Every structure is written in structure tokens, then in C-alpha cells.
């Protein structure tokens, strides 16, 4: 018995035990609030779960989803949202960061604050303001375009402009964090690299392409993956600005999940939608890690 106790008290085993004990609280919360709901979501997606009915229907929810025109339209809208928003957010954020990271501390903080403000503000408040900006009868945007002789447009009620209007709002709320991260990353690039390139008469574009961009790759990877995931999950803006309209032209998968679960009480169908979205996000994230992660050197 004594031998066994002595063996357990060996420093290695003690450290091992300590590590897992420290990990346990976070791991417990992860299991309870992330892993369990995810697994339960997969489980529910195989059931007809509406209010108190719970019957196994196999893959029916998934089959119905892929025959549902509105879901396919929502999937396309979501993809379009990501394809347009993510590159604009990345390019815009780098552009702003490049222009402010060398400025004095006060100016830098001011610009960081300006661009980060929408990220920390309530999305509901922001959306209400944007709703008034886009208002078809009394919106400031129509007032401004009217000054140049343009006819008023129903920005959120036109199939050609509704999704773009949503994207514009989404971009303003998405660029805050990337700008902060890029400014920090740019500040960490040794100036000697850039000075050496300048002595060798490298152009600004060459310096950006050959030095700055590769040095930003770890930040790029994080920002691209996070922005992609957040854009895929865009919901509040859609619900508050357009409710998916006009005629489903801004309906997204997350809005569909909300509508099925909370408006219609079809939790099984909503879970299936969530799983499809999770799979799509997972696959795209893996591809992003493969292509953007290969250049990352930590």
C-alpha cells in the first residue's frame, strides 16, 4: 500500500493530475454547454420534434430540406453573403490598418475606437438606426441620393439592393476586430525587414506582397476563419431589417433555423438546418486552414 502511495506521489504523476484538474472546470463547461447541445442537435435532427411530439423519422428532415426551395435559396443567399462580405472585410481592414498603424498613439486609438464602436454596440440599436437610414419614405439615404436627382429606392424592399444593403451593415459591424488585430500585427513586423527592402529599392506593392502579407498570415488565418463563421451565422440583421424578404431574397440559413424552431415549433427541422450549416462551415474552415494555414509560421 505504502509503495502505491509513494508511486502516486511521484512529481510526474502529480503534474499530470494537476493539469487535468485545472482543465476540468473549463472542460466541464465545454461538455455541458457546447458538446452536449451539439450532439443533442444531431440527435434531434432525426426526429419529428414539434412541441411535445417526438417521433423518429430517420433522414426525412434532411431529404425535405434539400427539396425545399426556400432552404436552397437561403443556402445560396448565405453563401453569397460570405463570398462578398469576407473579402471586403479583409481588404478594408488591412487598408485601414496599414494607414493608421504608423500614426501617433492618439490618432491610432481614435481610429481604432471609431471602427470598433459598431462591434461593441448593441446590434439591435445599430439595426434600428440603419432601418431609418434605409427607410423608403423618410430615410436619409434616399434624401442624399435625391440631392443628386435620383428617385427614392426601397433599399430593403428591392431584390437587387436588399442583400447588398444587409452586406453594407454587416461590413460595418465586422471590421472592428480585424482592424484592431491587423494594427497589432503590423506593429510587430520588424522595421528592419521593410527598411532593408526599401534600400533594395523594392516598391510599396513588393514590400506588401513579399514582406507584410506573409508576416500577417497567422492573423489572416484567424480573421478569415472567424469572419467566415460569423457571416455564415448572420441572423439578427436579417430578422430586424428584412425578415428574409423581399420574397426570400435575403433569407439565410440561420434565419430559417429561427423561423422553423421558434415561429413554427419544428425543432427537428431546425436542428437539421443547423447541422447542414455546421457541416458547410466545417468544410470551408478546413479548406481555409489547408490553404492559409500552410504559410503560417509561429
Amino acid at each position, binding site marked *: 500500500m505504502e509503495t502505491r502511495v509513494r508511486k502516486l506521489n511521484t512529481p510526474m504523476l502529480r503534474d499530470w493530475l494537476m493539469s487535468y484538474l485545472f482543465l476540468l472546470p473549463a472542460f466541464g463547461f465545454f461538455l455541458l454547454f457546447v458538446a452536449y447541445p451539439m450532439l443533442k442537435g444531431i440527435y434531434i435532427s432525426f426526429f419529428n420534434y414539434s412541441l411535445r411530439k417526438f417521433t423518429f423519422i430517420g433522414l426525412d428532415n434532411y431529404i425535405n430540406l434539400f427539396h425545399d426551395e426556400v432552404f436552397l435559396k437561403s443556402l445560396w443567399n448565405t453563401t453569397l453573403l460570405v463570398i462578398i462580405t469576407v473579402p471586403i472585410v479583409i481588404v478594408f481592414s488591412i487598408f485601414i490598418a496599414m494607414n493608421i498603424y504608423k500614426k501617433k498613439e492618439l490618432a491610432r486609438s481614435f481610429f481604432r475606437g471609431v471602427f470598433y464602436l459598431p462591434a461593441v454596440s448593441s446590434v439591435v440599436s445599430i439595426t434600428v438606426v440603419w432601418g431609418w437610414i434605409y427607410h*423608403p419614405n423618410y430615410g436619409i439615404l434616399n434624401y442624399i441620393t435625391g440631392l443628386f436627382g435620383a428617385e427614392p429606392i426601397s433599399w430593403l424592399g428591392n431584390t437587387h439592393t436588399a442583400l447588398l444593403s444587409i452586406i453594407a451593415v454587416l461590413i460595418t459591424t465586422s471590421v472592428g476586430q480585424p482592424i484592431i488585430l491587423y494594427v497589432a500585427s503590423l506593429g510587430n513586423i520588424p522595421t528592419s525587414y521593410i527598411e532593408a527592402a526599401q534600400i533594395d529599392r523594392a516598391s510599396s506593392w513588393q514590400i506588401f506582397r513579399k514582406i507584410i502579407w506573409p508576416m500577417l498570415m497567422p492573423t489572416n488565418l484567424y480573421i478569415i476563419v472567424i469572419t467566415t463563421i460569423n457571416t455564415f451565422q448572420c441572423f439578427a440583421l436579417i430578422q430586424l431589417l428584412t425578415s428574409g*424578404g423581399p420574397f426570400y431574397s435575403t433569407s439565410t440559413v440561420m434565419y430559417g433555423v429561427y*423561423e422553423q424552431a421558434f415561429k413554427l415549433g419544428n425543432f427537428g427541422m431546425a436542428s437539421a438546418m443547423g447541422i447542414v450549416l455546421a457541416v458547410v462551415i466545417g468544410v470551408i474552415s478546413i479548406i481555409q486552414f489547408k490553404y492559409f494555414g500552410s504559410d503560417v509560421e509561429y
Partner: protein
Amino acid sequence: MNIFKKGCMTLLGVTLISTQLVACGSTTDTPKASESGKAKPVEITWWNFPSFQALDGEVGKYEKQLIAAFNKKNPDIKVNLEMLTYEAGPEKLNVAIASNTAPDVIYDAPGRILDWGKKDLLAPLNDMITDEVKKDVSPALMKQSMVGDQVYMYPINTAPFMMGINKTIFEKIGALDLLPLNKPDRTWTFDEYKKALEAVKEKAPDVIPSGFFAKSQGGDQGTRAYIANLSNSSFFNDDYSKVAINTDKAGAALDWIAQGVKDKLVVSGAESLTGADVNDLFLQGKLAVTLNYSPVLKAQNATLKKAKFDDVLVPFPTIDGAAPKLEPYLGGMAVFNNGDQDKIAASKKLVDFIANDPEWGKKNLIQTGGLSARNSITGLYNDPEYTYAELARKFYGNPPTVADGYAEIRTYWFPELQRVLIGQATGKQALDSFAEKADAAITKAKAALKK
């Protein structure tokens, strides 16, 4: 050793938190009535939408007074009140029902209550509805309270959904005679209505003649009844087995609305406006005619007006001036069957108190701003618009809310209206498309109920 101690403390902490979580999740047995027959205290939960106007601007204050009065007569029943909002309440209810944490009693409308009734989630209230009550409530309202033979909602307050008109604008432009206010029942024709709108357009160019909205399903009773009456159509057929709104005349009415946007007779951007947005324009004095109005909304909006004007209620016009078919707003109470007979009995006592108490019954009705669901109870308000609203109850038509699959059907209505407003379909095409989807939803819902 210190590290080991800290580790043990962490483990202890996690264990404690886990214990608490388990404790939070555990269910306690509800007390059963004692064998001696003596009444045991019962605790019930009442979830309430803002059915009663807030007292002194405080949401739930009136309800608390009501519960205190109820407790004087029923000291053994503890009522836990939870106020819901119209925005988040429906979602909260869906989640609560799905997770077996539904309230015991609720004040709501037939749209949701009948759906729960069809899914066997509610306790029947047949024992509360005497023959005298049944005879005193109009058939349209009783239909909205029942599933088959079972009564699931105790009808309390009602009001016909109508149009609201800014009377002051018509007075200012000298066109008051274009409104049907001199007729006792205020019925009017589509042509008379068009003339009234043209007069506003011509003589008050800064005012939008009429409203329309299709952004979301909120307030869709307004758009449904508007199109149905402008075309003398019904929304559903008589046995609710099919949609009946897809007539040529209804299509033409919808086309007229879409054209009206271009002709500046109807608010522009209607496809991205909600019913609330349009009513806001009305309250700001920028809109002459709004579609989604009732005596209840008129009372609630009295303090929200941003401009001084008198508003009057008129029914929707019909092609030939025939009697319109109005959708009734109905508020009432339902009791959830959560498997505890004591709670069901206690909940019924609360329902009875709210609806029928000699002192509080009338008080409650006035606080809702609505009319009584009982035909015999009239003259609650000293207001000519309420007197007219009481008369307009005779126009109650078949309420769409009782249709099987109603919740799903509503999700197909506003996108099709949007399609017409943005010029992607004609009125008839959109209504046919809606009918196809809605009929499929009815069939699906009927099949699901048979299982």
C-alpha cells in the same frame, strides 16, 4: 503539496457547481390534495401578454392588483405572474412547451391557443362554458375558442379589425363627405374609397393616402381582410379545407394596390414596411388611412400620437358596398394540461375570476380597451367609436385563425404580397402560388393531427 491542495480545492469547487446545476435541474413533486379533503395551497404560473393596458406606465402593475384581489377570495392559490412581450413571447412559449416548462394559464389569442388545443396540450374548459355563455357569444367567436367539441379558450374581450382614418385630414381638405361616417354601419364601396384616396392625393400632397405592408407576418389580419373585402372574397372556404382568396377579383385588388404605390395612392416601400411601421406613420399624421386598426389599438395609441388628430374606425370597403367580413380580434384565457389536476382547477378559478367576477370582470374588460366577448355586455365606454365598434361586431366573418396549419400558412402570405409589390408577379399569380402552398400546409397539418 501546495499544488496538490489547490488541485483538490478545484475539484471540490467543480463538484459543488455540478451539484448546484443538478439541483437546479431537478424537479420537485407537486403537492397533492391531502387525503383529509382540506384545500392545500396550490401554486400556479400565469404568463400574460400585455393584454391589459399598463397602469401608470408600469407593465404588470395592473395584473398584480388583479392577483391581489383574486387572492382575497382564493387565499390558497398562489399566482406567479410572468409578463411576455408580443415580440419574444411566442418564441418563449414554443421553447417552454417543448421543454415541458409551459405555464399553467395564459391570456392569449386563438391563433396559438387553438394550435395547442389541436396538439392536446390544453385542458378543456367545457365545464366553465355554460349554455347561457354559449348563447351569449357570437358563433364566430365560439368557433375561435373551440377545437371540435372541446372549448380550449375562455373568450373574454373582442374587437373587430377595421381601418383607421385620420378624420382631421379629411376635414381640412373639405372631403369629409367622401367618408361613410353618416351611415350608421359605415359601409362603403371600393369606388367611394378610391375617390377618398384621390382627394387626399390631390388636396393634401404631403400626406400618404393609404397604407399597406408586407415585410413580415405581424398584422397580416389587416392585409388579409383588406384584399378579401376589396374583392368580396373569403380567405378560406367554409370548411377551411382550402384557401379561397385566389379569385380573379382578389388578384385584381392586389394589382390595384401595387399600381397604387406607383400612383402615389399607397405608401411606397410597402414590401419593406411592417404593420407597426404603417401605424407609426398614421400616428405621426403622415398617413390618411391605415389598415390594421381596432378599438383596442385606438385606445392603446391615444397617447402615442405625434400629431393632433381625430381617428375614426371604418370597415373595409367592398366592391358593391355589401356587408364586409371583418376578422375578429379575440382575447381569452387557456389552461395548460401539465398533468396536475389541482393546478388545472386553480387555473380555472383564476380564469373565472378574470372573466366573471362581479367587480373585476368589467374592470378587466375596460383595461383591455376591448369589447366584451358576450353580446349582452355593452356600453362599457362613453365613446361613439366604441358604440360603432359594438355595432360592427355583426360583420364578423369566418376567422382564418382556426384553420389547420394556420401558423405555417401565415409564413407564405407576406412573401407573395412582396412578389406583387416588387413587380415579380401579378396579383392572381401570387395568390395562386400562395393557395398552392397554403393548401399543402392544410393537408399536412390535418394528416399530422390524425397521427
